[in-house]
């Protein structure tokens, strides 16, 4: 009871901040990552818009960004974050490094989902007179929806982890609580509750992702 009185407020606030950072960055990173993933696939040899140049450039950008550990990226992009948001502190500011870190991840997730698709289906669509855009919007993406959904839940879970790391640079959220109270003040009880909340959120997202993916999939 005493615990709730003391920490209830900040736990709720921390949870809200974590959810805000996570979902905002998921949405924005899909905005960039989805087209990148699509491009990575369609510009391959023997696909609908083969282009070695675009494929290589994009692949390289993705690989470079992915090979920078997130904790370093977090600090490295501070000047850029200031430019975009006006400050580098707080949940809103944390969305910037989160999006930069997650976009290449999303691109690869989308790429692998779209690559599962049978090439024959794309060919059939082309034989019916589909344009490349129609093939992407009406065939590749809808046909890959169950797999894309699963990918989005994995992305979301990864971003929860990233958002906790962003706590290090004062992003707020549950990671921030764990560092400030758990690490500096040895409030092990609060630390434990923080972990429980994170586990529950992750489980819920995983469950929802699996459930929706299965529900919309007509393959089985």
């Amino acid at each position, binding site marked *: 009871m005493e615990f709730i009185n003391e920490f209830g407020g900040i736990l709720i606030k921390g949870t809200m901040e974590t959810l805000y950072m996570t979902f905002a960055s998921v949405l924005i990173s899909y905005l960039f990552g989805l087209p990148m993933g699509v491009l990575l696939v369609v510009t391959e040899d023997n696909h609908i818009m083969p282009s070695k140049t675009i494929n290589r450039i994009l692949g390289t950008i993705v690989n470079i960004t992915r090979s920078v550990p997130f904790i370093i990226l977090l600090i490295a992009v501070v000047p850029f974050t200031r430019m975009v948001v006006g400050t580098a502190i707080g949940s809103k500011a944390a969305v910037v490094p989160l999006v930069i870190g997650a976009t290449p991840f999303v691109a690869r997730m989308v790429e692998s989902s779209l690559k599962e698709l*049978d090439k*024959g*289906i794309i*060919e*059939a*669509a*082309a*034989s*019916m*007179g*589909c*344009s490349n855009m*129609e093939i992407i919007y*009406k*065939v590749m993406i*809808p*046909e890959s*929806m*169950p797999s894309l959904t699963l990918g989005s839940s994995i992305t979301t879970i990864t971003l929860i982890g990233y958002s906790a790391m962003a706590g290090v640079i004062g992003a707020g959220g549950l990671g921030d609580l764990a560092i400030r109270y758990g690490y500096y003040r040895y409030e092990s009880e609060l630390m434990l509750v923080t972990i429980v909340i994170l586990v529950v959120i992750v489980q819920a997202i995983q469950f929802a992702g699996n459930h929706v993916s299965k529900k*919309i*999939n*007509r*393959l*089985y």
Partner: protein
Amino acid sequence: MIKIENVTKIYSNKKGDFLALDGVSLEVEKGDIYGVIGLSGAGKSTLVRCINLLERPTMGKVFIDGEEITAMKKSELRKVRQSLGMIFQDFNLLMQRNVIDNIRFPLEIAGVGKVEAKKRALELLNLVGLEDKSHSYPAQLSGGQKQRVAIARALANNPKVLLCDEATSALDPVTTLSILNLLKSINQSMGVTIVIITHEMKVVETICNKVAVIESANIVKNGLTKDIIGHFKEV
């Protein structure tokens, strides 16, 4: 209807060049059910895919109704493709769309209105005998039923030509016969010209009025089925 003129196809990749068609010419007339038969790797699929330019000939020309499609812009080619239906060995249906929506798909692409598309799709379902499956998904159908859906889909925009690449190779003999009969009735009642790729002489004998024999990138013999078959029997 279809004229293939001196078509050569060379596949190039890292390992080198591969000559899949070596200056092939062929003419398919309106109303024909034209069989193309040959062993695996002979170039049959390549040939049929050159008819709707899923594969671009390295050299040579392809004409549909007198128009050279090898010289067309992409947008023109897409229009022409809507008049060339195609079916495949493994059906290639949209697995996340139900039967009726699969048949509606090419209509949607061609810009046909919703109401009309639905009406047309129902007609086609009737034609292929799957009225009761309109809301099933492809994964719930047998191979023969899937190929019927594929045929309905290929016919949606009233094509002049139906290209079939090993359309019955994944099916058992009885189902094969029922699909061949369906193709024949489509040819007779709708006047659709059909090109059938196969490696089974039985398929040619059953429905083709003409046949071309293809052997390592060349057409070695073509003409009326009865003449060619006679020739084969002699050999």
